[in-house]
């Protein structure tokens, strides 16, 4: 069959919705449909053009973003204005989660490299949600916590490896 026709009738409408997209994110995997609908009501959908800045390094951040479609470049700028690319994020990735629970400065800049749709989850909305609907908010926060802990774990493992390598290198230097 022509793929052009097969797609329309197979996909139920739900798979096109924002709630479904949020459900595919690792931190929101354990939310049920009702909680996803609640989450859908506290996020903001923002459209970015190519080369538009999402935020700059040093800005006081107020929340995190999920990439629904498009591409985001994360980079640092040194004192001479040279950019160092840190990562290229694609649809389904997320960034900026450090600023979600406290107003911390952004540690890198983010810029859209093509027309991009971001879904933003912001601190003020999250705080209000925690006040008004504690149960689903707790689940959302737990999911976020899980993801951030995983990242922390990864980081500490890598740090450990780097330390070992450093000691090893030093030993080689002193031996030589």
């Amino acid at each position, binding site marked *: 069959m022509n793929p052009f026709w097969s797609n329309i009738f197979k996909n139920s409408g739900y798979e096109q919705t924002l709630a479904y997209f949020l459900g595919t994110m690792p931190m929101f995997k354990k939310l049920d449909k009702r909680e996803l609908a609640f989450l859908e009501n506290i996020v*903001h959908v*923002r*459209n*970015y053009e190519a080369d*538009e*800045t*999402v*935020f*700059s*390094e*040093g*800005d*006081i*951040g*107020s*929340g995190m973003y999920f990439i629904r479609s498009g591409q985001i470049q994360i980079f640092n*700028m040194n*004192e*001479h*204005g040279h950019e160092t690319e840190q990562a290229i994020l694609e649809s389904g990735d997320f960034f900026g989660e450090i600023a979600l629970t406290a*107003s911390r400065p952004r540690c890198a*800049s983010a810029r859209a490299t093509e027309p991009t749709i971001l879904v*933003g989850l*912001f*601190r*003020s*909305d999250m*705080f*209000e949600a925690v*006040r*008004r*609907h*504690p149960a689903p908010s707790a689940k959302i926060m737990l999911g976020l916590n899980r993801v951030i802990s995983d990242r922390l774990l990864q980081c500490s493992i890598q740090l450990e490896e780097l330390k070992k390598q450093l000691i090893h290198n030093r030993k080689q230097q002193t031996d030589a």
Partner: protein
Amino acid sequence: MHNQNNMSRAQVAVLYLVLTTSIASGIAIYSSASIITGLLKTATVDLFLPMLISLIVSFLLDPTVQFFEGKKINRTLSIFIVYFLVFALVFLLLLIIGPPNWKGMMQALQADFPRYVSGAIVYLSGLLATAQQHFPFITHYDIVERLSSVSQSFFGLILKETPRSAMRIGSLLLLVPLFSFFFLRDSRRIMRSLISLSPNRYFEMVLDIYANVSWQLAHFIRGRILEALIIGMVVWMGLSLTDIRYAPILAVVAGASNLIPYIGPIIGMIPGLVIALVDLGMGGQFWWILCVYFLIAQVIIDNFILIPILISKVSNLHPLWVILAIVMGGKLYGVLGMIIGVPIASIINIIIISIHQYRRSFNPYQRYFTSRGKLL
């Protein structure tokens, strides 16, 4: 010198035409704009008060609605529950205490008003006479004449305004519950769509400032209204212990005037003191009433208990701004404007302060500088 002759006749004509058309179209735009704003003004003049009151009501009821929402009842239903509870409470109060006879009291007050004014005048002129005895250099100031003319015009105003305000209250009773229902149900959605209009670069800032301002506003409005209610209750109870008449009306005056900082409480206690002086004389009851107004309501309850608990989280206005707001509010909307002028000024103050605070932490030029202030 050649430049002046460079323009040909046709160019001058075109220039002249362009200038005249631009001036004419400017005038046309200006006049049509003023017509449109005039139409808007006449269309919205009666909506200002109901909108304001329903905003305040929705701020007041929001915590209770949230309480029911927390019990997994949807928002519309919880608003209906809160409405039902409020109406039931008012009805019950009227049933138990019995409605204070407002109408009869107003009529009696209208009859008594000239007596109180003349009593106050007599007392004041007596005071003035003793003052002149002790300090002969005070020139004779015709306070009696002035006071009686002012009070008569004020009294005429009240007589004229009463039927109009009764009609207004009727329309308010209809409009305010309706408006505040929609504010309660949809304010989040309305504000979200308004905020999402802001450009990407400033979106986070707008969101943060909005969250801060709305938090402060909610606390400020709830705190002020609760403070006025409690002060009114305290004054009512204090006055009920004496033989003074019109205690409910005086309590309402004291509560409402308490919304105006600094000056309000003083103005609010004048009618009570005058009535006490004329009806009860300068006895123990007069001093008790003064004590109720000043020491109990203002100093103990308001300054020591209510303000630290309710309003200290929100920054206060400078007295100069308070006076300016009262004068300007009075010019725009009369007595009502005097009462709501200060809260509106405080709201503007809160907005300005939180924008300022945000700009201090969110510096849009920060990315061009290093942490040591060097240009990148």
